[in-house]
């Protein structure tokens, strides 16, 4: 008897025999069939042949800084820019590339060097701005890619591209692809979970949408399940007032018995799948609250994440929940932190954004490492594009804004399969063009899949007569240099 069947059988034997003998006996027979149904229908298994090779990571945590963090004020250190303060961006650098219409009408493009100090961290001597002191402490764990570039210049298409490999809505998101390919390793939780923590008041928060975690053309069961910050993390999760867990168990037993009566007549295996889904719903009703219950975490762990860890919906707490999800077998956790769209008042807004997230990011890496989970978990950090070196609107020594810049931006990766302490790619003195080792977002996605044991070229789903890939039709490549 397999494990699933065993636990189901155990449940049947120990549950109170409430609805009489008939139901009970049917229930046991049914459970045997249910185990089968689960194996063939309900809980998704890996596709045959997958993973394509030995995976370095079993799970992915994607920390998405929505809105586009400024690379110039975080990781892309340009000390020589100070002498260009307030001067026009040289046309040779701008090169006639397209601009967003928010600044394309500006008469001048005055260079705004970062007002923040940078210092070196770790054995690798990585330069990190003073906005990210905690991230500085994990400098040796992360690989920073300075030469990421994307196709889109506005938020909506850029995010859609980042997560689905296409600017056009309707494709499958990366987490859905992973669930589809590798299946689920959690019996009690969905394999792809989305977290949407709160962000600082006053920052420019853009919308996020279901399509960023939808399954697109893949079957709907591979869609991400967005846990909410407030009220119930999963829609319709709690029983109504006046119905307790014991009541629910009994009601589900009755429902199962009635459905088994039907199944005996028409023999449609979908009925057994549906019975199993009701059982999974019952398990979710306890596994999700258990997930959110942090009372079992040690003080040392909680301290790592900082004082915000107690606040529901905070970024710090979401990072801890992300670790708990991965610990419980969830494949992909996609975390959306909003408010990084600093068109004006960048120093203040970006300062708030970094303060809100810095400790949580670093704590997540440290926590995973302490538990020996970092080797098997891939963590990715970054936005949908970067920001311009020239100021949007007024420029002073202390205040400036930056427009969208898709031509180069910084992302970092850590954990399963990635070499810590390295930098990859280089930009020109203005952080405006890539001069070395460009990494297209499709390359980044190919690399993520590679760490999970998937060859992106062979990872295909047929839709509308075409071989769909996360990485699209143009050739893309795994960034071998950052792999451990």
């Amino acid at each position, binding site marked *: 008897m397999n494990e699933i069947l065993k636990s189901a059988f155990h449940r049947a034997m120990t549950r109170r025999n409430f*609805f009489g003998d*008939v*139901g009970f006996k049917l229930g046991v027979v049914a459970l045997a069939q249910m185990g089968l149904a689960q194996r063939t229908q309900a809980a998704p298994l890996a596709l*045959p*042949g997958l993973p394509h090779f030995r995976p370095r990571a079993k799970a992915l945590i994607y920390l998405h800084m929505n809105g586009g963090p400024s690379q110039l004020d975080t990781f892309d250190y340009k000390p020589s820019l100070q002498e260009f303060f307030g001067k026009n961006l040289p046309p040779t650098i701008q090169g006639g590339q*397209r601009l*967003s*219409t*928010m*600044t394309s009408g500006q008469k001048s493009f005055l260079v705004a060097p970062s007002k923040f100090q940078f210092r070196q961290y770790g054995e690798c001597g990585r330069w990190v701005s003073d906005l990210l002191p905690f991230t500085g402490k994990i400098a040796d764990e992360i690989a920073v890619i300075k030469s990421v570039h994307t196709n889109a*210049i*506005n*938020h*909506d298409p850029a995010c859609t591209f980042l997560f689905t490999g296409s600017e*056009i*809505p309707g494709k499958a998101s990366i987490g859905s692809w992973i669930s589809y390919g590798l299946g689920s390793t959690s019996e009690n939780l969905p394999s792809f979970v989305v977290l*949407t923590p709160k962000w600082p008041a006053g920052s*420019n928060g*853009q*919308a996020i*949408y*279901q*399509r960023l975690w*939808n399954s697109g053309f893949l*079957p*709907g*069961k591979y869609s991400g*399940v967005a846990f*909410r910050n407030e*009220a119930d993390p*999963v*829609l*319709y*999760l709690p*029983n*109504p*007032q*006046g*119905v*307790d867990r014991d*009541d629910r168990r*009994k009601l589900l037993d*009755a*429902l199962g018995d*009635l*459905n088994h009566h*039907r*199944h005996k007549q*028409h*023999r449609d295996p*979908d009925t057994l799948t*549906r019975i199993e889904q*009701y059982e999974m*719903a019952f398990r*979710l009703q306890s596994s999700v609250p258990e997930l959110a219950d942090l009372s079992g975490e040690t003080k040392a762990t909680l301290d790592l994440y900082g004082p915000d860890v107690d606040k529901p919906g905070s970024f710090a707490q979401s990072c801890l929940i992300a670790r708990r999800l991965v610990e419980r077998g969830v494949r992909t956790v996609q975390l959306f932190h909003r408010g990084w769209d600093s068109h004006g008042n960048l120093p203040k807004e970006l300062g708030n954004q970094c303060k809100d997230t810095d400790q949580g990011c670093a704590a997540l890496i440290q926590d995973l490492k302490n538990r020996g989970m970092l080797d098997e978990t891939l963590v990715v950090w970054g936005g949908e594009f970067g920001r311009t070196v020239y100021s949007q609107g007024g420029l002073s020594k202390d205040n400036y804004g930056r427009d969208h810049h898709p031509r180069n931006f910084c992302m970092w990766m850590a954990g399963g399969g990635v070499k810590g302490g390295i930098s990859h790619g280089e930009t020109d003195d203005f952080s405006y063009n890539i001069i070395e080792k460009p990494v297209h977002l499709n390359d980044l996605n190919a690399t993520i899949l590679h760490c999970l044991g998937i060859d992106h*070229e062979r*990872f*295909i789903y047929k839709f*509308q*007569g075409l071989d769909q890939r996360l990485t699209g039709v143009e050739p893309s490549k795994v960034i071998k240099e950052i792999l451990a």
Partner: protein
Amino acid sequence: MLKTLITNRCILALITTGILSAVAADRELAFNRDIRPVLSENCFSCHGFDSKQRKAEMRLDIAEGAYGKAESGAVIIKPGDIKGSELWKRINETDPEEVMPPPKSHKKLSPETKNLLRRWIEQGAKYEKHWAFVPPVRPAVPEIRNPQSAIRNPIDSFIVERLTRAGLSLSPEAEKARLLRRVTFDLTGLPPTLEELDAFLADKTPDAYERQVDRLLASPRYGERMAVRWLDVARYGDTNGYLHDHRRTSWPWRDWVIKSYNDDLPFDRFVIEQIAGDLLPDAKPEQVLATSFCRNHLITVEGGTIAAEYLNEYAADRVQTMGTAFLGLTLNCCRCHDHKFDPLKQEDFYGLLAYFNSITEKHVENSNAVAYAPHIDAASPLAPDGPKAKVMVMQEAETPKPTFVLSRGQYDLPDKTRPASRRPPHVLGAPLPGAPENRLGLAQWLVSPQNSLLARVTVNRLWQQFFGTGLVKSVDDFGMQGEYPTHPELLDWLAVEFREGAKPWSVRHIVKLIVTSATYRQSSRVRADVAAKDPENRLLSRFPRQRLSAEEIRDQAIYVAGLLSEELGGAPVFPYQPPGLWEERANESSNTKVYKRSEGRALYRRSLYTFWKRTAPPPFMSIFDAPDRTACAVRRPPTNTPLQALATLNDEQSLECAKLLAARTLKEAPTTPERLALIYRRVTSRTPAEADLRTLQNGLESLLARYRTSPDDAAALLRQGVTPAPADLDAPELAAWMLIANTVLNLEATLVRD
């Protein structure tokens, strides 16, 4: 050895095709049915239509290419001569440098596939034009000698002929109660009432069923039911999508759709008015309103967006929607490059785009208007004297915009050496002689006999609506990568009947043919004898059981609770929704950031009237597989998930319905067995079996005991929903019955139509 993913798929496809097309050793192979799928899957990406990807100057998609010589000088395919055919040699090579397809393509031919190719070459390697691009001709209806089952109309003749060839037969007719539930859902989206059920069971006349069909087709609910599917195709929503997702007012167009189905507006008019109603001579306001179809796409008002980029995007969306809805082609592929599999060039895409990019629209930033120009003030066609709303429509600019092929599909890279002029795709023939060179001319061409696709694509989508799967499974792809029809003759017969039969272009006529066929009326019981021969039931030896749609599940609960509002059309409504769903994701400045629930009867409108916010669609609808309406969708692949279970168990509306269903049951029947039977039958249209009654009765008794001892819990439970139950009912008893009703509403028999 582990085979690659694609090889597995390929073999699987072949096995399926093998069964369905009965590629028996004694049957002559047909290129379109048997061979083209193999070549398309394995060869065309390098040796096909796309000249840029073509390797070694060699193509296998046309006979001239295949019968020619390879670079080596060898003849590629010599009809009738395996040994003289280079293709045969190369697919059997063991040298990885030589073998086709090459290892790096990750494609591999199975022995069965090779055998198929060998037989085809031996039989003369005949090529055929792709079937879907040849206009349909009405085939003869097969003569069925000594039928084993009723043949009610020509549909059955085609289905039975095919079943007979596979050694199968139709199932017997479904029980009457089952049949009435099935057809009532299919034609109205609701279950039958007990009165309707009793009347039908009592009616012993031979045409009792046909009279039920006529009654249902005449119901205003029919138009609502049909409209739901069209709203998916037309990507209808009540917001603009994209970042701000502001509100728009398009619902008068939605009502135009309902009215069109209820009036059985001929489908050619339905197409012409939606594509080019504004261009009709003396266009009536309703005909202009119909063109809102072309404006249902998403619209961005994000600051910093580039006008040329988005205006191009909207025009491309119109082309893509038109292509999927009316041609069943994946035109968006040739936005960036020539189609890899179908004979569609980039010029074809931009030739179509040129019809749709010359309207008087302007790109707007940071505006939250309910409609962007061009728009009209329109009332609902269902209530012409009712309030008016601004609705976006089509209005042609004075002069057509010069259009060029865009390199790699980039809006800012027009290739000035490749101007695109308005015309239908070359492979589908020339523009209609004498037709205007605008959207009206395109629409007239779409509905003309020259277009081989419209009637086929439409009847196929109708077939899918009733049987779950199309005769062509790939309802969105009739191109070469699409699936070959299981019943090509039936598809063509239906297409021709639709276009020029007893009632030309009458959707209702085709629907009636389908639901009065013996094929539709048969039992859905799974047959052990069929499982091996036709595991997917593509040959229809039984009626396919299907889970109800999202709208049907919600509407059914409201209906059996006695709550449903039968008001037709009107502005969208805001029923129960868990709090915070809009607020937590919306853009700060969106005018759909705050969800304000409706009051009163608006809570109980049919689901198609629920306000559709595109970035956060109604959760109950999404959970039950409704698309998000951001792009044309012609299928809703059903899923079976735990979130669905939670929704029907715990959603406030579901619970309120259970409460009022319980209350009316307590009022309408005096004893427990009668009440249980009533509740079960009202919801499922079935009489419960003894075992069912026993399970329910045991459950009820324990629930009664539980709520009698904790009346506070009963009172808490009864607070679900704003409509109270009658005050004279005993609270613990009502609470117990409410959970029995909730259980019945969650039965497989309730959620499925079989």
